[in-house]
């Protein structure tokens, strides 16, 4: 039956019920969810932004505090979707058997995957938004154009949701996610321009970094936050959309293989 797993996903509008379920649960667990997504970036922002900012001053015409805030917003959108797509989806798939319950209703695996992707993206937006507010309150943001970054949080979430769902479908236990986090998420966080411009890396490293999606997320979010003109916005959006589309199809194939046996 392997061929069955390779057909393109055909979700219906009822996929939004999955999204709605997750939103209702998120509302109930707002405290811990926010503490997790919000605490770490704000600590980085305060610690590194104020501390290092004193020595660095400006990077590429942007105050370091603002430069860093923009990078951390993109990284937050990446982290929120990645962790929701791995840990929470894995919990719903295995320990809670939420999907087994849902698959006895008219919803299908394609609906589940589509609903989860939309939810991961929504959660990226919801949990990154408060960091934008804090960055504004701390004086890192002075331009209304920063509001334009909000839909980008959603797009970044969509981009990272697919690979995270694939990881959840392949995982035997939570420990498996250490590979993905250590080999991809953390290197992207360090090398993709959150803390310093990608241009300072050696040429070969820049090629690798530009293949990965986080640098493109930052390339969109940073000018919007700093009030500078966007450079090649269509290219960066296209890369993120391509990751989202490929990730969605891959996630559908792998989750279907995991759930329908």
């Amino acid at each position: 039956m392997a061929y069955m797993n390779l057909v393109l996903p055909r979700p219906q509008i009822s996929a939004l019920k999955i999204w709605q379920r997750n939103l209702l649960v998120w509302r109930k667990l707002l405290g811990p969810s926010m503490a997790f997504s919000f605490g770490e970036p704000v600590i980085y922002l305060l610690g590194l932004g104020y501390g290092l900012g004193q020595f660095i001053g400006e990077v590429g015409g942007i105050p370091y505090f603002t430069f860093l805030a923009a990078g951390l917003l993109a990284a937050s959108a990446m982290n929120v979707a990645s962790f929701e797509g791995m840990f929470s989806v894995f919990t719903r798939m295995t320990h809670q058997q939420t999907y087994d319950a849902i698959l006895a209703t008219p919803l299908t695996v394609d609906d589940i995957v589509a609903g989860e992707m939309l939810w991961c993206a929504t959660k990226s937006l919801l949990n990154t938004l408060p960091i934008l507010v804090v960055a504004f309150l701390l004086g890192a943001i002075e331009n209304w154009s920063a509001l334009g970054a909000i839909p980008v949080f959603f797009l970044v979430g969509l981009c990272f949701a697919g690979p995270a769902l694939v990881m959840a479908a392949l995982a035997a236990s939570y420990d498996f996610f250490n590979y993905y986090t250590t080999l991809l998420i953390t290197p992207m966080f360090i090398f993709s321009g959150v803390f310093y411009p990608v241009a300072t890396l050696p040429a070969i490293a820049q090629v690798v970094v530009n293949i990965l999606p986080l640098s493109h997320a930052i390339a969109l979010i940073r000018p919007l936050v700093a009030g500078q003109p966007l450079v090649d916005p269509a290219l960066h959006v296209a890369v993120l959309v391509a990751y989202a589309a490929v990730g969605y199809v891959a996630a559908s194939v792998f989750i279907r293989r995991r759930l329908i046996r």
Partner: protein
Amino acid sequence: MSLASRPPDAVVLARGLTKKFGERTVVCGIDLTIPRGGCFGLLGPNGAGKTTTLRMIIGQSPMSGGTLSVLGLPMPDAVREIHARTGVVPQSDNQDPDFTVVENLRMYARYFGLRPADVAGRIDELLGFLELSDRRDARMRELSGGMKRRLSIARALINDPEFIMLDEPTTGLDPQVRHLIWTRLRQLKASGKTLLLTTHYMDEAERLCDQLVVIDRGRIVTQGSPRGLISEHVEPHVIEVQGEAGSVVPVLGGIPGSRLLTVGETHYCYASELGPVLARLEGAPHLRYTHRTANLEDVFLKLTGHELRE
């Protein structure tokens, strides 16, 4: 099997239903016809293929071979439509732990495209039906196993299904809850719904099922009504004696019209006439025995053997 030769009102019609996991064949081409109305039982030892068969019928496990229609619709092509008219009580309770009892039912209604406002009355009815009304705002961790199972049944009824599948609905529950569930399942049956249940409790199957099949190693071993199967396969009288084989077998062995079966230290004497067996027992006052009528468990043990499974 062409559609033309399909019995007009079969809720499940399976022909040559087969499931392979790699090289291992778990369900070996079984034919099932589950008529509309009544309760149909799927019996078998652990690992016989019951749950896999159920999963294929509900479309959660792709068939490796055969044809299957549910409620007159082809599976898997019409899976959404079939699910809209079916209720499923899974073997292990899988409610949302973050929701309360009533929130679980509301969310499940939404999956069927029903609006919570439209099913508010139905939710109250179902909570009353399963005696959960005073628990409507409880979290899942505050519910006992019996309450969770009753909630699973309530949830399976949220879409007013015509066909309800229950995978071991009373496993691990205390006698009070089992009786409550049996009463409710009989009520559902009386209201015209079709029930398909798996169980390895023979008393449960005997109480609830109108028709049943016994499957073992992925094949149907026998099928019929509980009473029909008992009279077909087992002598009407059963004398059970506890004791060492050395003291029991000389007394009860070789009585004409009876056969003796030993499982561990329990000896079952199956007899068509009670008189000759009692006459032997009178000569052996040291043996304590119980006399009972044959039941489905005797059929099950005879057909699926005595060795441990799993």
